[in-house]
């Protein structure tokens, strides 16, 4: 039995369907991410789990029991709020102890648990401070300690790292994962940042316009997205629309408007439509001056396109290129900078061959 089961849940605000028929199981001990652009309904779904909103249709079951009528203060679920929502008139200690006092714990127990939480998030020495006298990172830790103090069955995190700068955000992501593993708790995080979702979560649910489009592991989401929209939302992608011309030996030949004939691997589940999109991630597009090495060609058919480099962005770990194909379309390629001194780097206006294998391509029907 899953810890949490969401069954065909609908939430309406007026005529707007913020959450539109979402079904989802989340298992105990999972780190689950709800990913989507702002306004996709992910926060509304999270607020329904916390009890701040009630579903208009469908059921939410926690441990097999419908929690529709359980008020927020009676749920064994805690939430870490987006802007932390620390109580400004209470000290760090009293913020963390707030939920413990409500649970009617003895004073000595509260003191012990607060000390444990303070140590867990490394806030020693700041117990007497008021939230206004803390840095952003410290506030984030207090909020985390406060929401974990009651040892909830499930911790809900609403964009918990959005207010931190990039470096701190990355280190905090790893601390969150480490914490989740150590405590063995179920974490449900809401985020609009696909990199963050892929870093922390074991499974990701992608939401758009109130619907849950795909639930998958980070790798599956990136390498086998269900739709054009997800392919574009999660990472960068080159997309070419076309018609299926031929189908043989698990290979599809697709006539595209912008990239000519492309040979792609046929998906295992087959393709029903004839009008499709071919998706290739930029890092799978290799560039060279002369084209692929002969031994690469021998093993499988290769897609080979020619064009002129129009844009070079050096990002440190990798360099991204924009290649204007002879059809006028732009193809993006990114190459890891594996050598410090790269004599092979390409320059603007240089003519190059871009190539990729059929297995690097993905056929999308919608």
């Amino acid at each position: 039995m899953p810890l949490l089961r969401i069954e065909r849940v609908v939430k309406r605000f007026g005529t707007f369907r913020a959450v539109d028929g979402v079904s989802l199981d989340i298992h105990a001990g999972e780190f689950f991410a709800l990913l989507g652009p702002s306004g996709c309904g992910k926060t509304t779904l999270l607020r329904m789990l916390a009890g701040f909103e009630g579903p208009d249709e469908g059921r939410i079951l926690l441990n097999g029991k419908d929690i529709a009528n359980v008020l927020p203060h009676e749920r064994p679920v805690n939430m870490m709020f987006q802007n932390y929502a620390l109580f400004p008139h209470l000290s760090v200690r009293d913020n963390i102890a707030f939920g413990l006092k409500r649970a009617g714990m003895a004073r000595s127990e509260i003191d012990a648990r607060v000390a444990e939480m303070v140590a867990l998030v490394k806030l020693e020495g700041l117990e007497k401070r008021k939230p206004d006298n803390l840095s952003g990172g410290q506030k984030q830790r207090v909020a985390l300690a406060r929401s974990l103090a009651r040892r909830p069955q499930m911790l809900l995190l609403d964009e918990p790292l959005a207010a931190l700068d990039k470096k701190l955000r990355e280190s905090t992501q790893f601390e969150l994962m480490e914490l989740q593993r150590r405590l063995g708790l179920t974490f449900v995080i809401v985020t609009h940042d696909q990199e963050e979702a892929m870093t922390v979560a074991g499974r990701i649910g992608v939401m758009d316009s109130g619907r849950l489009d795909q639930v998958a592991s980070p790798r599956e989401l990136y390498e086998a997205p269900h739709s054009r929209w997800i392919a574009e939302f999660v990472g960068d992608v080159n997309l070419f629309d076309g018609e299926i011309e031929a189908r043989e030996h698990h290979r599809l030949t697709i006539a595209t408007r912008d990239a000519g004939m492309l040979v792609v691997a046929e998906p295992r589940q087959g393709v029903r439509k004839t009008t499709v999109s071919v998706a290739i991630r930029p890092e799978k597009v290799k560039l060279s001056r002369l084209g692929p090495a002969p031994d690469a060609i021998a093993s499988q058919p290769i897609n080979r396109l020619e064009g002129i480099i129009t844009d070079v962005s050096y990002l440190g770990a990798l360099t991204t290129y924009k290649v204007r194909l002879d059809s006028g379309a732009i193809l993006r390629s990114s190459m890891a900078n594996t050598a410090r001194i790269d004599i092979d780097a390409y320059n603007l206006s240089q003519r190059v061959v871009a190539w990729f294998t059929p297995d690097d391509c993905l056929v999308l029907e919608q």
Partner: protein
Amino acid sequence: MSGRRIFARPARLGAIAPYLWMLLFFLVPFGFVLKISLSQTAIAQPPYLPVFDLTQGAAAFKTALTALSLDNFRLLVSDNLYVFSYLRSLVVAVVATAILLVIGYPIAYGIARLPPRWQPIAMMLVIVPFWTSFLIRIYAWINILQHDGLLNQMLLSLHLVSVPVVWLSSDSAMYLGIVYSYLPFMILPLFATLAKMEPALEEAASDLGAPPLKVFWLITFPLSLPGVAAGVLLCFIPIVGEFVIPDLLAGSNSLMIGQTLWLEFFTNKDWPVASAAAIVLLLLLVAPLVVYDRLQRAQLEGAR
């Protein structure tokens, strides 16, 4: 260089303008009142002695100075009439402010929790009655409360009473008038603090296991204290010196200090005692302001 001067001068004038205003319209008149409070009443024009006359020379000014005394303040302390007036004013102000807080807080809270587009309309409804003249509204209450007024007619027709009730000239009528008149001054600052409070704070408290009443007492109310303090002061201070409402709606057996002042000034023509009473009143009212100022400073320090 000249450009700098041109801009510097009006800026400096702007900085001292409020002080000039205070000096001219507050400190100088206060000096007059203070001087009169140290004088003796006299049947003359003006009705007190001594009168400073700088045309008579320095010696005459000196003898006039020696004629000043604290007699009027001694009278205020020794005569029960004044002590009782002060006490009554304070009691009325405390009771009325407490009633205002109890009535005003839920209204302000309710408005602050309305959908944003309804909030300005609700605030307008609170303020609109105050576009009618204050005196007209008090007279309207007299109309409602009098022997054959609206209230008695209603009670009689509902058979709740068999004979008309005497409402006017009573403390209840006075409290009704005061609470009615001052309610917006309580609601406005309370609304301002409650409306800008982050709703996530109340949600966080309930998420952490606090039932609704606890959420209110542990989070909402403590965080609205600056608004409570502002509302209480905005009501308390003018109510202590209130004259019109008690004069029109309360009985004549016990007077508030405002009424006593009026009597001394206009009926007894005793300007010096009236001035002394006014100065003591001012000192009484400065005390809560100083406390409020301290509280605000402490809060600013805490926020740092």
